[in-house]
């Protein structure tokens, strides 16, 4: 157990250094620029090596491709030019302590034509002028993408390869041409989303071997294993590992050479020395073991850029950095090689590097689900594999860097184990939340470890969990769970039940799923629940069939040698991660609309079946009319005193939530994925609760058409007047059914004085409390601590609040980047005053106009 040697864990005497301050200013000033380097290199190599004619791309093919990209890409030590608002160019000085970048730009949009880059094709000429999150692109780059890159991928990106395969299989099976019903459901957008067309991602690599042994040692080991095995596919796998690791080493050495050249021509001795330091470090790592804290950070950074060259930046996460790097940190501090300020400065520089790229999202994606970063989570604190307190001095340094930088990426997540981690630590986590307004999210180790062990992980594996993407727990570096593989719209399950297999969005005359009975003929609430469970199983079937099919396409066309090289399992099994090489394999589904569906069930139970206040036919009529002419019914449905609402410790409402959670977990857990693992379920919605909400009609809980759904596992806004009751309702939900993580979003009003921090800490302790074993306690909690007025002002004056950080539902975003629907959702969240423990007056905010 590490000793805390800091006299002040808040490190309040430390601030931003001039270097970091200048870099941070540039970071917020610069607009993202589309980078064509990766697609250019990937495409030219694929053409030259006839990849587009192959029926299958081997892992060695891919490894040679990535080695080529790594060795050929421009080694940029420091950037010097960017574009600001209005796309005006400006010069700046980049004095980062780390060389290299994910793209060729200071803040780049990385493109993967193998996945969804072609969705940007129609808007290439307008993307720099679009309302939401514009990207700079030059005419030359438009031409290159349009003429030289995109045409090659028209038949060969993952979606179209999957569609082709599905067409072929269905033609053989049922003789229908161009038939792929699961894909069609995905394209309808209201049933579920699948992330495999977009990525192999949402996992945590293992950096510990790269740091402690260096990549050369891993290459040697792979070569040895290659010589020992007789299995041809394993031989190919080990050869692939050698290829990509050599590519990473060369990239770092190329950076070293470039830094040396820059140093040679540099007149300023201070700058010259800094460049020489970079050259020396990058010449050594990641090839050889890191021996200093900075070398350890450089190893992670260089490997991280390589991982992103292979895999889209969607929730790839860095894991428990305070554990992985602690030994190097401790050694340097104890030897007097670095001071605390140096360590914090290095972390700040790394944080900025991690956020040096943004995802490429088409305009409608921005409208529906926009504002996201790349959700690169880092995890701090918690317990070690033996269950001991793992919080160390570096944990506090990382918290300090987080507090100083207030960045969207990386997405900081703190683990807290009640009874093991210190109260001072929890107090510090809450203080940083108050200071930053939104970070870090706090996870309850006790409940999370229980959830993971219930799915078969050993206690040691579960204790070593890191947070993936938004909030998903996964054993660090050994768990490939693709936790966002499926995003299931639970309200569509309700819709299919209400309309006997039909959906108002696709037309009430079209049978989408199967007929489970006309609800107006149901005699009891149990009849309705039975029908809903059937519809749930149907939708789970469709989404998992598609996910597995897409996974098999990945296996044939998108092997992942780089990610496999940084994982526990593949090296021992001689098998790629996506072939099941990881120690723990699963797939993840996250569910959107829990509270709205649960409250709808409670409404049907109470109002239709128990009190017979309206018939089912009258309820459906009210829904079809969006409650017009049925205002009294809607008011009743919205009133927690008349209709049970989740979040008030109402036994009916909370039982309906638990019933859904258990039913969803059971439906998914029955399914096997394409790697032989099982599906896990979580309740974190990113911005999908706003996106799906926009598409859906009125619901029985009184929600009107096209309004936002509620985020994550959070109760519906405006119907939970007491904070403690809201927390208790969530905390009693069964952790073993929530193994892919939850996001409970709370909004606290900033208050003056020390009592706010005390009350804040008490609210977290109360939520995590397991009531002597009677419940699991809440798994995760995240906050927005910003006044209503500030958020409203940020809608009308986004530039004044360009750094305003908010928690969406899982990840963190800059409020100005969110689409209007999502901005409204954040503003409309229930606001609690901690000093009273009560909700303040709830008054929904009008939907902001979309900028033109």
């Amino acid at each position: 157990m590490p000793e805390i040697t800091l006299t002040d864990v808040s490190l309040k005497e430390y601030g931003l250094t001039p270097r970091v301050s200048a870099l941070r200013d540039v970071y917020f000033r610069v607009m993202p620029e589309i980078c064509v380097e990766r697609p250019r290199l990937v495409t030219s190599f694929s053409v030259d090596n006839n990849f587009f004619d192959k029926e299958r791309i081997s892992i060695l093919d891919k490894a040679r491709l990535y080695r080529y990209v790594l060795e050929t890409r421009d080694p940029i030590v420091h950037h010097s030019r960017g574009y600001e608002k209005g796309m005006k160019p400006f010069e700046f000085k980049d004095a980062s302590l780390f060389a290299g970048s994910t793209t060729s730009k200071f803040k780049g949009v990385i493109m993967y034509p193998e996945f969804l880059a072609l969705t940007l094709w129609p808007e290439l000429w307008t993307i720099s002028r679009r309302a939401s999150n514009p990207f700079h692109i030059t005419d030359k780059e438009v031409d290159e993408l349009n003429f030289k890159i995109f045409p090659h991928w028209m038949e060969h990106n993952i979606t179209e390869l999957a569609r082709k395969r599905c067409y072929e299989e269905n033609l053989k099976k049922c003789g229908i041409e161009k038939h792929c019903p699961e894909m069609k459901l995905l394209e309808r957008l209201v049933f579920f989303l699948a992330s495999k067309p977009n990525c192999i991602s949402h996992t945590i690599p293992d950096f510990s071997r790269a740091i402690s042994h260096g990549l050369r040692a891993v290459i040697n080991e792979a070569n040895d294993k290659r010589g020992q095995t007789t299995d041809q596919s394993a031989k190919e796998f080990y050869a692939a590992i050698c290829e990509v690791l050599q590519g990473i080493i060369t990239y770092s050495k190329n950076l070293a050479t470039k830094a040396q050249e820059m140093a040679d021509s540099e007149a300023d001795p201070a700058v010259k020395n800094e460049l020489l330091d970079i050259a020396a470090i990058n010449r050594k790592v990641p090839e050889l073991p890191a021996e200093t804290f900075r070398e350890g950070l450089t190893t992670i950074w260089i490997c991280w850029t390589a991982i992103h060259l292979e895999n889209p930046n969607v929730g790839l996460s860095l894991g428990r950095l305070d554990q992985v790097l602690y030994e190097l940190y401790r050694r340097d501090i104890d030897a007097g090689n670095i001071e605390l300020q140096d360590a914090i400065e290095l972390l700040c520089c790394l944080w900025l590097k991690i956020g040096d790229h943004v995802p490429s999202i088409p305009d409608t994606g921005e409208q529906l689900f926009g504002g996201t970063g790349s959700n690169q989570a880092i995890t701090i604190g918690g317990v070690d594999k033996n269950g001991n307190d793992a919080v160390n001095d570096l944990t506090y340094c990382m918290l300090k860097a987080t507090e100083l930088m207030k960045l969207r990426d990386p997405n900081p997540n703190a683990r807290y184990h009640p009874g093991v981690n210190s109260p001072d630590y929890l107090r510090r986590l809450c203080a940083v939340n108050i200071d930053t307004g939104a970070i870090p999210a706090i996870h309850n180790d006790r409940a999370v470890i229980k959830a993971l062990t219930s799915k078969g992980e050993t206690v040691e594996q579960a204790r070593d969990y890191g947070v993936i993407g938004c909030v998903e727990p996964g054993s660090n570096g050994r768990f490939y769970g693709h936790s966002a593989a499926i995003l299931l719209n639970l309200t569509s399950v309700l819709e299919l039940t209400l309309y006997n297999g039909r959906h108002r969005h696709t037309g009430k005359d079209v049978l989408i799923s199967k007929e489970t009975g006309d609800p107006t003929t149901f005699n009891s609430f149990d009849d309705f629940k039975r029908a809903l469970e059937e519809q749930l199983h149907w939708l789970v079937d469709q989404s998992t069939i598609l996910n597995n099919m897409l996974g098999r396409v990945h296996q044939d066309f998108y092997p992942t040698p780089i990610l496999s090289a940084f994982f526990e399992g593949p090296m021992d099994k001689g098998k790629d991660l996506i072939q099941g090489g990881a120690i723990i394999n699963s797939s993840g589904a996250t569910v959107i609309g829990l509270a709205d569906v649960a409250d709808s069930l409670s409404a049907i139970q109470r109002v239709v079946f128990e009190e017979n206040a309206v018939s089912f036919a009258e309820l459906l009529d009210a829904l079809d009319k969006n409650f017009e002419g049925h205002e009294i019914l809607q008011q009743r449905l919205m009133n927690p005193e008349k209709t049970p609402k989740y979040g008030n410790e109402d036994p009916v409402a909370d039982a309906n939530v638990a019933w859904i959670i258990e039913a969803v977990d059971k439906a998914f857990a029955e399914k096997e994925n394409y790697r032989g693992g099982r599906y896990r379920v979580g309740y974190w919605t990113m911005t999908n609760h706003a996106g799906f909400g926009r598409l859906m009609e009125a619901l029985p809980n009184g929600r009107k058409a096209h309004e936002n759904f509620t985020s994550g596992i959070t109760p519906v806004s405006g119907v939970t007047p007491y904070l403690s009751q809201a927390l208790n309702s969530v905390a009693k939900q069964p952790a073993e059914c929530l193994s892919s993580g939850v996001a409970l979003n709370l909004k606290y009003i900033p208050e003056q004085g020390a009592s706010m921090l005390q009350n804040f800490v008490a609210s977290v302790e109360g939520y995590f409390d397991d009531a002597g074993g009677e419940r699991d306690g809440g798994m995760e909690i995240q906050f927005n601590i910003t006044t209503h007025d500030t958020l409203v002002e940020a809608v009308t004056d986004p530039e004044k609040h360009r750094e305003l950080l908010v928690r969406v539902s899982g990840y963190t975003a800059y409020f100005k980047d969110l689409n209007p629907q999502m901005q409204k959702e954040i503003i409309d969240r229930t606001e609690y005053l901690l000093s009273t423990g009560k909700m303040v007056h709830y008054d929904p905010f009008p939907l902001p106009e979309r900028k033109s």
Partner: protein
Amino acid sequence: MASRLKRTVLGFIAALLSDRVGLFLAKIRSKRLRDELSDQVTDKFLELLLSGMDLAFCLSKGYRKNIRNFEGRYLFRTADDRIVAAATFKGGDMKVHGGTIDEWDARVTFKDGAALRAFIFSRDHDILNSILANDVEIDGNFNYIYKFGFMARDLARRLGVA
């Protein structure tokens, strides 16, 4: 829609002209399309768009680069088959069909001319947006639609109505 003879003549003229002059001619010849793009849209929109593209491919070398080495078959129709048209691309040439075609890479079923225009041209919207509104349904390979979307917007840009 340009006849074969007309296309040959136009192609010959275009070869003698600069791209700028070619575009100028295309601009003059496609006034109705420009009106439909910037003003009231009618059910003639699809026909005008396809013939506008066809003409621009004939007259503008720069625009024609879009279909060099490109093969693709598109079917456009309303659900009730009130409007049906197809466009095929092969050998650097575009062919517009007044009716249906059997084989297609992408099929676009749209509600009306306005829905189709919104689908392809609406500012600050992309192709998915119309699908969300259920105004347009796509079958087949979406990448062909993305390419068509680019070409259509590129045409509008060159005609000065983007």
